[in-house]
């Protein structure tokens, strides 16, 4: 127990160091606005990937409707700040709760499905959320909700990201987390052992959805708008790709996947003709040689390189 807490503290210290370094470089202009934007995008993507990993990686449920929950968060927070004129912090909280609540409502019936069926159901639900928003004139309909102030700062994104990572890490090690892992390994066996499988699946789904909502709120308050076209199933796939690339069931994998894919996308913006090709070839090669993703379901640690200790940000 003591050992675990010391480890947490050292990671926290590292986080503070990274935050100070990055914030310093942004402040002094060593990191220009473009890379600042991409670092913030990375943090948002990490929140999304890690929360999807909770559903897909830890609990073994194949959900591909994450963009839908992100949209809910983006829109509810924007309604709170723009339409109602309330503070941003409240927007973040309400976005998290409302996306989680929707995840709960949707999770109850759909999580009785398995595998492919669940994937199709969640894909459909993500689209339904988007189409509903598209037809609500109060939030701008097809033109999206414009005029959102840029309230998301690097500090907000970074610390929320760290908070989400810690939460999910601790959740995995808790009793409900272990139940989720058991469901992933073998649902029938878990059921036989007396685990209420539906309850824990819905729990994981709700938590994952609520963090996607948080990410959506951060996203809309950084990019000035909430637009239905930003939350198509392509974004769900993007998030899924990050998780699968890093390795289903590995949190450090999801983090690496998010960083890697966001960077690749930013670097390749100079070569739009090649972007999709390089992107797809990378995926194909990876899936051929490492079908389990970069890290499989293991966590990245210095032990992997024979060093002992562990580090991630």
């Amino acid at each position, binding site marked *: 127990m003591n050992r675990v807490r010391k480890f947490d503290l050292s990671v926290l210290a590292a986080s503070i160091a990274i935050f100070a370094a990055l914030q310093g470089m942004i402040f002094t202009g060593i990191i220009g606005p473009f890379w600042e934007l991409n670092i913030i995008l990375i943090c948002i993507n990490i929140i999304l990937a890690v929360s999807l990993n909770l559903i897909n990686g830890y609990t073994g449920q194949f959900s591909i409707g994450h963009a839908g929950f992100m949209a809910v968060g983006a829109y509810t927070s924007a309604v709170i700040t723009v339409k109602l004129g309330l503070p941003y912090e409240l927007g973040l909280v309400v976005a998290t709760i409302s996306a989680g609540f929707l995840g709960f409502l949707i999770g109850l019936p759909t999580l009785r499905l398995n595998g492919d069926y669940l994937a199709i159901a969640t894909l459909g639900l993500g689209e339904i959320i988007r189409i509903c928003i598209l037809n609500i004139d109060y939030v701008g309909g097809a033109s999206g909700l414009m005029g959102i102030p840029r309230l998301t700062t690097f500090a907000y994104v970074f610390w929320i990201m760290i908070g989400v990572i810690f939460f999910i890490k601790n959740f995995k090690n808790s009793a409900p987390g272990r139940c989720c892992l058991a469901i992933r390994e073998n649902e029938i066996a878990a059921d036989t052992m007396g685990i209420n499988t539906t309850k824990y699946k819905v729990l994981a789904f709700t938590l994952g959805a609520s963090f996607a909502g948080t990410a959506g709120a951060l996203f809309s308050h950084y990019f000035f708008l909430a637009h239905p076209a*930003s939350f198509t199933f392509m974004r769900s796939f993007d998030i899924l790709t990050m998780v699968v690339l890093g390795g289903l069931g590995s949190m450090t994998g999801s983090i690496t996947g998010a960083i890697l894919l966001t960077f690749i996308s930013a670097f390749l913006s100079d070569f739009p003709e090649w972007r999709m090709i390089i992107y797809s070839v990378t995926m194909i090669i990876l899936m051929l040689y490492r079908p389990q993703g970069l890290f499989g379901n293991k966590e990245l640690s210095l032990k992997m390189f024979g060093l002992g200790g562990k580090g991630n*940000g």
Partner: protein
Amino acid sequence: MKRVNKLLSVLTAGVLFAGALAGCGGSKEAKSDVIKIGGNLEMTGGSASFGISSKNGIELALKTVNQKGVLGGKKVELVVADNKSEASEALNSMQKLISQDKVVAVIGPNLSSAAIASSAINNAAKVTAITPMGTNPDVTVNPENGKTREYNFRACFIDPFQGTVMANFAAKEMGFKRAAIMIDNTSDYSKGLATFFKENFLKNGCEVVAEEAYLQKDTDFKSTLTKIKAVNPDFIYVPGYYQEVGLIIKQAREIGLEVAIAGGDGWDSAKLPEIAGKEALNGTFFSSLYSPDDTSELNKNFVAEYQKTYNAKPDVFAALAHDATLVIAKGIEDSQSAEPAKVAAAIAKVKDLNGVSGAIAFDDKHNPIKSAVIIEHIDGKQTFKTKINP
């Protein structure tokens, strides 16, 4: 001791990571004999054909501009950033072009939503952005305070004008009385055109017998079309984009709905005949800003050059991006500077600049004052029908 090592290694990793990032942040200095302009364009995604045409148009315009050069022989160079046909990516691209590539002005994005989203960035940085085809009024005017966005311009006319033009043309010139409207509910552009079409069509004493909606990426329109056929219109107005419009036209003909079908400039794509089929396109026409058959000298040269280089007829995106490039070049010449803010001030004052789509001058809302054309499809070919002045 071991614990200290652990902590140290974590810190080192963090610092290394941060150091790697810092390497990316450095800004490149612009070479003094080259002036860069940006293209925030739809190179991939749902509207990729818009971006690719625009890029071709810009490159041709730069060829002309670079024959003489600007500011006494400096070359103008295009830097393209792909906005993936999506608003938040467009904002990302705009940030890249302005802060990484240090462009003097930006052309794009074509999509209104993307142009509105990225306007926050280029206005904060005081860099001009000219959208070739962003027709939504909010692109140049901030709806919250009704003020013109100082650094946003467009090279096209706005939605209300296009809907009005088509309504008057259909009622007065073609003598249609009963129109059905099919609206792309996912697109503001479509809704805008439909609203102004309906308003003006009714003003002409005609009636709208059906109003149906569809969504982007829909592929089966037969049930909607059958419904429309039942109310027997003599004319269908479909202000959508070519992908769905192509299928709508094809399926309308398949169920025996042979009436005239018309739309707006979203139809303008070489893909339309491929999707709908040449036969089915007979009796369809759309309003646009530009026709390659326009007879001005400048346009003839442009079309010839375009065909030579890209082996295709230029579409409206190419023509307007071409004109936007000329506007920026003129702005640089007039202000005698490569400073974005000074160039922007000069662009606002541009008058009587001849582009391939007609003369260009901006009103106080940064909309150009220009004429519209009606283009008809005959055997799959776009044919210039008539020109309508504002």
